[in-house]
Structures are given as C-alpha cells and as structure tokens.
C-alpha cells in the first residue's frame, strides 16, 4: 500500500499542490491529465527525483521521503525510451538485477525470461540503437518489470510511438503487467481512452492537483468537476453558458434548453455541458457547420449555435461543407450541469440527489 500525504513541490515547471492519495497493491492506476497537469512531476516526486517541500510518501506505513532513490523499491519507465546505449538488450535488462547483487548468470537468466515475455528473445545481443521505437520501449519496460518493484511507474510510455505500435502495446499491456499483484502500478497518459481502458482506478490531475478519482466508468458518467469532465472527454465536451430561471433551463441569451429528466438547481447561472453524443442530427436547434472532420468510422462536426459552439459526433463518414446550415436536437439525458464554481450539479429526476 502506497500512501502519499500532502505532497507539495515548488520551483518546478508544475508544482504539486498538497496531493494526498492511497494506492492499493494489485491495482493499476491511470493518471489522466493534460500536458502540464503535474503527472510526470508526481511520479518524479514519488521516485525522489524532485524534492518535496512538504508531505510524505509511505510504503506499507514506512516513510520513503528521506530514502535514496535506489532504496525506494520503485521502477520508472520514461516517456522517452531511455536505455543504456553501451549495453546489449540483455545487459540492459540485467542491469538492475546486477545492482541488487545477483550473479551475472542469474541476472541474465531472469532478464532473458522477462525479455521473452515482451517478445524480444531474438534481440538479446543487440544494442538499443539497433531496435525500433516500440522494441526500445519494450526493453525499458522489461528493465522496469524485472526488478518486481513494489511500485511500477510508467510515464506516458506509449506517447512517442506511432499509432499502430501504440495500439499494439496498449492491447498487450495488461498481459505484460499481469502477475504484479504485490505492486502498485501507476500509468500516466494524456489520452482518456487509454486511461479508461488500462486502469482499474483512474485519477484525473490538473494544475498539480488531483481533481477526481474513481472507476473509469463512474468518472466518465459523473465527472465531479468541469475540469474533470473536460479532461476525460474525447472528442471534447462543449461547455455553454446558461442559466436556470423559473424551473426552466436556458442557453446563452435565453434560448430554452431541453431539461427533461433533469432536476434543475435554484435560479442562477450554470454551465451546460454537451457531450458529442448529446447532439443528434434533425431537430429544433439551428446551427452552422464550423468544421467537419473524419475520425475513422465517425465524423466530428463543430457546430456554431447562437448560444455558442458545440461538437457533434455522427456515426459513419459524412460530407458537410463549412458554413452549411444544420438542424439538430439536443438530448437532455446527455446534458450535464456545472455550478459557477465548476462543481457538477447534474441530478436526474430518477436519482436521489
């Protein structure tokens, strides 16, 4: 069990701001956030690479804050595929085992086993520079896993790979880290899909703070804050200023918004959040197409309404011209409401509150 209490750092690109969290062994925690959210800083602070100005890190109740990096029982895989260029693939992976005091033959034997797991048995004697990007990252992953550290941290490990390799390694990842039941696995990413696919628990970070945490499905369905909703939504969620008056919901200057099934808050300003699936073609709302782009089997359409811009997702490939008019409907069951302070205040009439 890894516990962080009031973790605070300063003088870095992003400062960690009083972060506390409890990580249970055997879980994969995906840490989702935009670039500059503080994900890497959190991992570096845990590792001891960034100094703390306040707070503590405890592994099974024992403080790690003052322990040297090498004694923290942690492994880290960087976003950049960092390997030792002067060593062969086999010796790269055996390196941490040799530092643990294992004999060369034993270290190499264990390294071979883990390299077989990541599919690099054929490349044991090659240098990292002689491998492709995906293979280099597998070497880095194997080196991190071979130690069987209590904490395995992966800092956007797929970010520098091309699309195909990223997809492949993403699919393989659960198999690669299977069997680490005593370990806490922390996986940072900027991609909501990756975070939701890989993690048992998802943590959303913004501006050096944890803004939300929970199961991926819960967080996606009920993001606690506007920031969390923004980070977790891909394609992007659209936020439109609105207000509630006399038990009715209005967009912008006063256009009535659908609110069936929503328990509306007291009169006052709100932010209305529209996920792309909240808007469907055909309906009472008139919009102008600002931009239309293909995303594989879907088409993402940016719509300009009188009250603001929102994004609609349509199955299949459709051709729309910029500037064309389009009538759409907005589904109240996919609308979320946020208070001016950013808190999610969406309540459905079939919910308790």
């Amino acid at each position, binding site marked *: 069990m890894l516990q962080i209490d009031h973790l605070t750092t300063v003088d870095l690109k992003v400062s960690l701001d009083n972060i506390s969290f409890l990580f249970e062994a055997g879980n994969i925690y995906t840490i989702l956030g935009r670039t500059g959210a503080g994900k890497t800083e959190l991992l570096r602070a845990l590792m001891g690479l960034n100094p703390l100005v306040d707070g503590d890190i405890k592994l099974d109740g024992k403080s790690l804050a003052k322990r*040297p*990096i090498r004694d923290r029982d942690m492994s880290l895989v*960087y976003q950049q595929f*960092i*390997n*030792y*260029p002067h060593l062969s693939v086999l010796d790269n992976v055996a390196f941490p085992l040799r530092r643990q005091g294992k004999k060369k033959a034993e270290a190499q034997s264990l390294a071979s086993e883990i390299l077989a797991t990541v599919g690099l048995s054929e490349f044991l004697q090659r240098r*990292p520079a002689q491998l492709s990007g995906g293979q280099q990252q597998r070497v880095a992953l194997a080196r991190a896993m071979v130690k069987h550290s209590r904490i395995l941290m992966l800092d956007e490990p797929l970010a520098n790979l091309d699309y195909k390799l990223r997809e492949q390694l993403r699919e393989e990842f659960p198999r690669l880290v299977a069997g680490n039941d005593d370990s806490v696995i922390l996986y940072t990413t900027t991609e909501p899909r990756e975070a939701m696919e890989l993690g048992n628990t998802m943590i959303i970070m913004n501006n050096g703070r944890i803004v939300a945490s929970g199961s991926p499905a819960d967080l996606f369905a009920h993001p606690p804050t506007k920031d969390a909703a923004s980070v977790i939504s891909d394609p992007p969620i659209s936020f439109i200023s609105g207000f509630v008056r006399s038990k009715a919901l209005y967009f912008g200057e006063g256009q009535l918004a659908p609110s069936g099934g929503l328990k509306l808050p007291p009169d006052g300003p709100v932010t209305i959040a529209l996920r792309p699936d909240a808007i469907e073609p055909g309906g009472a709302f008139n919009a102008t197409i600002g931009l239309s782009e293909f995303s594989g089997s879907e088409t993402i359409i940016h719509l300009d309404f009188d009250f603001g811009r929102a994004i609609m997702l349509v199955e299949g490939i459709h051709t729309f011209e910029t500037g064309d008019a389009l009538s759409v409907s907005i589904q109240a069951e996919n609308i979320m409401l946020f208070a001016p302070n950013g808190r999610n205040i969406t309540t459905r009439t079939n919910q308790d509150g």
Partner: protein
Amino acid sequence: MNKFYHTLKTLFLLGWSIFVVFPFLWALTTSFKDANAITSGATYIPWVDFEPSTQGWTSLFTTGSKGINIVGPFIDSAAVTLIASCISLMLGTLAAYGLSRFEYRLGFVKNADITFFFISQRIMPPIVLAIPFFLMLKELGALDTILGLVLVYIALLLPIAVWVMSDFFSGIPKELDEMAMTDGCSPIGAFFRVILPNSVPGLVVAGMFCLIFGWNDFFFAFTLTFTETQLLPVSIVSLNSSVTPWWSLSAFALISVAPLACVAVIVERYMSRGTMSGAIR
C-alpha cells in the same frame, strides 16, 4: 554533371593530401641526406637523386659533438605529458560532470561562471603565467624537475579537459543518470557505470587535446627547466650549431610527431558522438 563534381572533388582531395603529406615526405627524405645532398638542390628519391645516409638518425642517439641523445628527453616528455594528461582528464571529467549535473551558487558565482573561470586560464598569454609558475616552483623546490612540470601542465591542461567534457556531458540526457539511480546505482555509481562508459568519444577528444598541448609545449618546458630535466621540444634547440643540421632536425621532427600520430590512429574510431544514439528517443 555529377561526374564533373566527383572529378573535381577527387582532384581537390588529392591536392589537399599532397599539401598535407608533402612536409612529412620532405622531412623523411631530408632525414636520410648528408650535408652534400642537402645543399645540392631539391631531391626526393634516395639512390636515384642522392645517396642515403643514416647520419641524421644516428646523431639523435649519440652524445658529444656528433649529436644529442634524445632518449632521455623523449622519456621525460612522455612521462610529463602522460601523467599530466591523465590527471587533468581525471580531474577535468569529474569537475565537468559536477558542473553539468549539479547547480552551484556562491553569491553571484554560478555554474557558467565557474566553467568560464576554467576556460579563462587559457586566455592569458603564457608569459603572464611563466613568472608566477617560476616563483611557485622555486618555493616548492620543484624547478627543473618532472614533478614541477607535471604540476604546471596540469594547470594548463585542466581547463581543456573541463571545457571539452562539460560540452560532452551537457549532450548526455540527465534522464540516463536518473534511470541508473532508479535501477540501483548511487549518484557516483551512475557516473562510473553509465555516464563514463558512454563518454568515451568525449574522453578521447579531451585526452587527445591534452596530449597534443602537453607534448608540443615549448615555452614552459624551456622556462622552467635547466639541465636536470629536458623535454623533447627544448632538446631540439641544442641541435643548432654554426651549421644547421637539417638531417638531424628532420629525423627529430619525425620522431616527435610519431607518438601523437600513432595515438590518433588508434583512437580515431572512438572519436564519434554516435555512441549516444539509443540512449533516449
């Protein structure tokens, strides 16, 4: 058009090679000439243009009026240069690593100022340093000794080592050190196990500079020694008499160049920065 440029390039390289190699060819042929062959015009092919003589070479290994024995100065030069270069490289590498990885601040003095301080030692003309060096060595009783010269050469070569290695270390990603520490190394262990093995090209370049500057120095070897210790560049001066012995000077020049040329050939393959590829992508 391509063929034209290829021919032009070949001709240029050929011309440049002749320009570079010719002095050595001239020195080699001259070293096998005697006084008569030297004064009879430009000749290059032994047994055809002139009758070869080993006088130039034998004069470097005999004592007395017929020449000087350069074995002693050669050994002294080699000892001073090697010891000073090794110590400079060792200290310079550690200093450069510290400057590239850690932040130092003493009032307004920061890392860049410390690096400049090292380099500034080479900005001063040698004559400015000669008198203080002379007085200090005299106080230490190290004038005209190998130890004295080694100390002076360390002071002269250390800035070169710090300069070259600082530049090299700044090109090695810090993440490599961090990775080594997460893999179980202490900071000093990370340096010796990971950074140093990946710094061979930098060490070779810095080492070559140290050897070249140390081996070729004349000024300090001349001003800080008298009779007990004599380095190779100084001993060549004693060859001069009423008649300049070009044959001996030429043989001497070739012997002087040979060690550095051999070292350069041996280490040439390490003088590439490509070894860092694969460290980080």
